[in-house]
């Protein structure tokens, strides 16, 4: 019985840090990209 429990997964998703990194990178890319587009469009209009 103890062996069976030891072989069972903990129920928590392991690893997958690359997805976490991708999510945060996308957030920054979007914010910086949109800020840059606002700046460029403002310059165009000025």
């Amino acid at each position, binding site marked *: 019985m103890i062996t069976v429990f030891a072989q069972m997964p903990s129920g*928590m998703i392991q690893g997958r840090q690359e997805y976490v990194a991708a999510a945060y990178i996308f*957030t920054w890319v979007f*914010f910086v990209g949109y800020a840059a587009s606002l700046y460029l469009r403002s310059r165009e209009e000025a």
Partner: protein
Amino acid sequence: MCCAGYDPTLWRCPITGWPLTIGVTLLGLAYLLVVAVPSVRKKLPFAWEHPLGAYGLFLLVTGNYLGLFFAPGEKFMGDVGRILHVHVPAAWIAMLAFLIAGICAFGSLWSGKRSWDSALEAFAEVGVMEAVLLCILGAIWGRATWETWWTWDPRLTTTAVMLLAFVGLLLLRAVVTDVERRTTWSAVAGILATINVPITYYSVDKAGLHQAASENFQNAESAIDSVLRWVMYYNTAAFLFIMVWFAARRWRLAEVRAEAAMPEALPEVST
């Protein structure tokens, strides 16, 4: 990145938890309240939104750090749960931006003032940007937890419809050149598109792959761990103030364009 949340060797800010999150949020809101007074705003040597944008950026840097390195991994999702510190704020702020766009649409239709129309354009565009980000972050999270990038779950489907409705509004504004028609039509389209916001918000209660709401604003109940929760709200404050900065900048741009599109005044005829 792995579960550094309770590492005793980690440097700790003397103020952590809810006092910090509430404090930083109130500070930003207090600034907004102060600059809402026209006489104060006019005295500023810079555009009122810039300090708020810088503040939002500071909160985003620190909030992302907290989400990645301070908060513990989620009970079932482990490190993947850290995506929620940006995914959930993106969802809330996208819906808030669309809701404000709806109010602006109503104001534009009611008063016919140009500033409402410019604000509608600004909040709709910022909301679309946030909603696209929300969908991408959701797809990344879905792939890591559900093993799929996309599924026609009620929450995902209603979010996509909400996003497409506002994309349609922006396309409408780009196509219609007559200013009066554009103002009226986009205000009506804005009100219709905003109907999707409560539908999207409550769609999470419908059976689907997306988990049920962990936050219940009506009963102030939460199923989220306290540390994860205040870090998530901290990031939400960052998203909120950055959204206000984006919207303010976009509103100024819309105003300049609207001014340029106005027909020139006829020269005065001397008699």
